[in-house]
C-alpha cells in the first residue's frame, strides 16, 4: 500500500461523505424531490473499486457508490444536478438521485430494478470481446438484498459461462432496507456462492480501507488478466438509513457497536495520522478543499434552470419518425 494510493482513496471517500452530507441537509431542507440514498460507511469499498478501474473500463454503480463514482471520474456536478433536477445535468431532470451516469465515459446509469445492471455490464464486455478489445474490466455493485434476485443469478452465471472480465461487488451491509440477512439468505457467507458459478470469490472487511484497496485491486487485476468473473463480498454496516427518510430504527445497537459498525472514513483518517501519511493540518486542508467543492457545486446548480416541460421532447425513440404520435 502506498501513501499516494491510500491518501487518494481517502480523499475520494471524504469528498463523497461531505457531498452526501450536504445532499442530506438539502433533503431535510425540502430542497430535493424524491429520495436521497447515502453510501455512509461504504466509501472505502466503493472508492477502492473506482480507483482500481481505468479509463475505458465499464462501471455500473449502484445506490451507495458515490465514492466509486467520483474515483472513476464522475464530476461532482453530475451528482448535484441529478439530485436537484437541473436541466443541465446528465439526466436532464428525467431521472433523479442515484439514477445517473454517462455512458460515453463508461458509467452506466442504473435502473431501479435490483440485479438488472449485471447482465448489462456482461453484454458490454461481450461487445468489447467482439471488437477484439482486451484488458478491459466491467464492474458493478449490488447489496445483500440484491443477491436474491433472479437477475443476479442469471447474469453471474452468464458471465461465468462466457468467462467475462466482470467484477461484481456485493456490499453486505447487513440489511436490505429493514430486512436483515437472516431473512435474505441462509448460507454462511455470500462468498460461498462463487464456487457454484465456478468463479473466483473474495471476502473483505469493508470497514477498513487497506484490505479494500488490496482485495478489490487484486480482483480487478485478475479479471483484467483473463481469470474470468470475480465476486467480492464485502462485510460492513450501512451507517445511515436506507434513504434519508428512514431512521433505521431496526438496526440494533450492539450491531452498531460491533466491528461491522466501524466507520471506514474515521479508520482511514486514523491510519493516515498513525502512519505519518498525513498531518492533522493536511486532513483539515483536504476537508476544506472538499467542502469548498461541494458548496461551489451546490451553489452553481441552485442557480440552474429546472427542465421546462414546454421545451421537453416527449419522444422515447431515437428515431423520431418511428414514434407513434397518435393523439399527441
Amino acid at each position: 500500500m502506498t501513501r499516494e494510493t491510500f491518501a487518494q482513496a481517502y480523499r475520494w471517500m471524504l469528498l463523497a461523505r461531505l457531498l452526501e452530507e450536504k445532499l442530506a441537509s438539502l433533503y431535510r431542507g425540502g430542497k430535493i424531490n424524491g429520495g436521497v440514498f447515502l453510501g455512509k460507511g461504504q466509501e472505502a469499498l466503493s472508492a477502492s473499486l473506482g480507483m482500481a478501474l481505468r479509463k475505458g473500463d465499464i462501471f455500473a454503480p449502484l445506490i451507495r457508490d458515490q465514492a466509486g463514482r467520483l474515483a472513476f471520474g464522475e464530476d461532482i456536478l453530475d451528482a448535484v444536478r441529478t439530485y436537484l433536477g437541473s436541466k443541465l445535468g446528465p439526466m436532464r431532470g428525467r431521472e433523479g438521485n442515484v439514477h445517473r451516469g454517462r455512458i460515453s465515459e463508461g458509467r452506466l446509469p442504473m435502473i431501479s430494478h435490483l440485479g438488472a445492471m449485471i447482465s448489462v455490464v456482461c453484454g458490454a464486455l461481450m461487445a468489447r470481446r467482439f471488437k477484439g478489445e482486451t484488458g478491459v474490466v466491467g464492474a458493478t455493485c449490488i447489496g445483500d438484498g440484491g443477491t436474491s434476485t433472479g437477475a443476479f443469478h442469471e447474469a453471474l452465471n452468464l458471465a461465468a459461462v462466457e468467462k467475462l472480465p466482470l467484477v461484481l461487488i456485493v456490499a453486505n451491509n447487513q440489511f436490505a432496507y429493514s430486512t436483515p440477512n437472516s431473512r435474505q439468505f441462509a448460507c454462511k457467507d455470500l462468498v460461498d456462492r462463487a464456487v457454484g458459478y465456478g468463479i473466483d470469490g473474495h471476502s473483505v472487511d469493508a470497514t477498513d480501507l487497506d484490505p479494500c484497496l488490496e482485495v478489490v485491486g487484486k480482483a480487478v487485476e485478475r479479471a483484467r488478466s483473463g481469470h474470468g468473473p470475480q465476486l467480492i463480498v464485502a462485510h460492513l454496516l450501512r451507517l445511515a438509513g436506507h434513504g434519508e427518510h428512514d431512521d433505521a430504527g431496526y438496526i440494533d445497537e450492539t450491531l452498531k457497536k460491533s466491528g461491522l459498525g466501524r466507520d471506514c472514513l474515521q479508520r482511514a483518517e486514523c491510519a493516515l495520522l498513525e502512519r505519518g501519511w498525513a498531518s492533522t493540518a493536511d486532513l483539515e486542508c483536504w476537508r476544506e478543499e472538499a467542502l469548498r467543492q461541494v458548496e461551489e457545486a451546490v451553489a452553481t446548480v441552485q442557480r440552474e434552470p429546472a427542465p421546462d416541460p414546454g421545451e421537453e421532447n416527449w419522444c422515447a425513440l431515437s428515431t423520431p419518425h418511428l414514434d407513434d404520435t397518435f393523439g399527441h
Partner: protein
Amino acid sequence: MITYLEAIREAQAKALADDPRVYIYGQDVGEFGGAFKATKNLASEFPGRVLDAPISEDAMVGSAIGAAIEGMRPIIEIQFADFSTPAFNQIVNHAATLFWRTEVACPITIRLPSGGTAGSGPFHSQSMEGLYAHYPGLVVMTPATVEDAYSMLLEAVAIDDPVIFCEHKYLYYHLKADGLPTEALPVGKARIARQGRDATVVTYSAMVHECLAAAEELVVEGYEVEVVDLRSIKPLDTDTVLASVARTGRLLAVGEAWPWGGVTAEILARVASEGFGLLDVPPRRLNAKNTPVPFHPNLWGTHRPTAQTVARAMRELLRL
C-alpha cells in the same frame, strides 16, 4: 379521519383477524411495517403471519400460488408496482391460468402500489393495470376512494381468483374519509362519482380526482360533466358506462397509463361498438405522454393528465 393508506392497513388487519388462511408476504412488511407502512403493527398483532420476503418477486408470487393451492389466502405486497415485472411470469402465466388448467382456484391478492408521485421517476411511478387486465384469469381492481380501498381489498382477499390490487400511491396520504365503510358496491360495478348531463368522463384510480376537479372547473362555464369511476378495470362495467353515455352523448376516457392500448382504448372500443348510436360526437381519450414517467415534478406534472388538461379535453369535447 382515515387515509387511503390507513384503510389499506385496516382492511389487511381485518382480513387477518377474520380469516386464519390469510397471511402477508412481502419485502419489509414485517416488523418494519412496509415501505409505505401499509402493514404497520400487523406483524406484532398477528405473529407469524406477516413475513419479510427476500428481494425475489418471482418466488414471492410463485410461493403465494403454492400456498393458495393448499388453501391459504396470501396477500403479496410488491414494494412498487414497477417491481412486479420480475413476477410477471408467475402472475400472468401461472396464477392467471391455474383455475382454467386445473379447476383449482388461486385466491391470491397482489398489492401493487401504483401510479406517479412527484420526484419518483420512471421506475417508481408506473400504472400497470392495463397489462394485467389483458390476461384472462385475473381480476384487476383500481380503487379511487378511501372507502373502496378498504372494501375492495377485503373483497380481493375473499375472491377465489387472483386479484391485482392497484392502489395509488398519490392517494395514500392525500385522501381522507370520515371512517371506514360498512357496505360497498360489489366488485364489477362502476360508480357515478359525479352526476352530469353534458358529457361522460370515464376514469379510475387517482385520475378520478383530477376529473372531478376538472368537472368542478367547468361548472362556472355552465357544463355539468358526469364522472364514472370504474373501480375495477377487469371486469369493466360496460353497462354503467353505456348508460351514462346514453344520457350525455359525449365520452372522454382518462387514464394515467401510456397512450397505446390500456384502459382508455378498451373503453372507447366498447362504447364505439356497443354504444355507437349513443354518441353525439366522436369519443376522446386522454392519457399520460408516450415516454417513461419523468423524475422532475415539472415534467411529471405535464406527463400525467391533471385537472387542467382534463378540463381542456372536456371543453374540446363539449364544443364539438
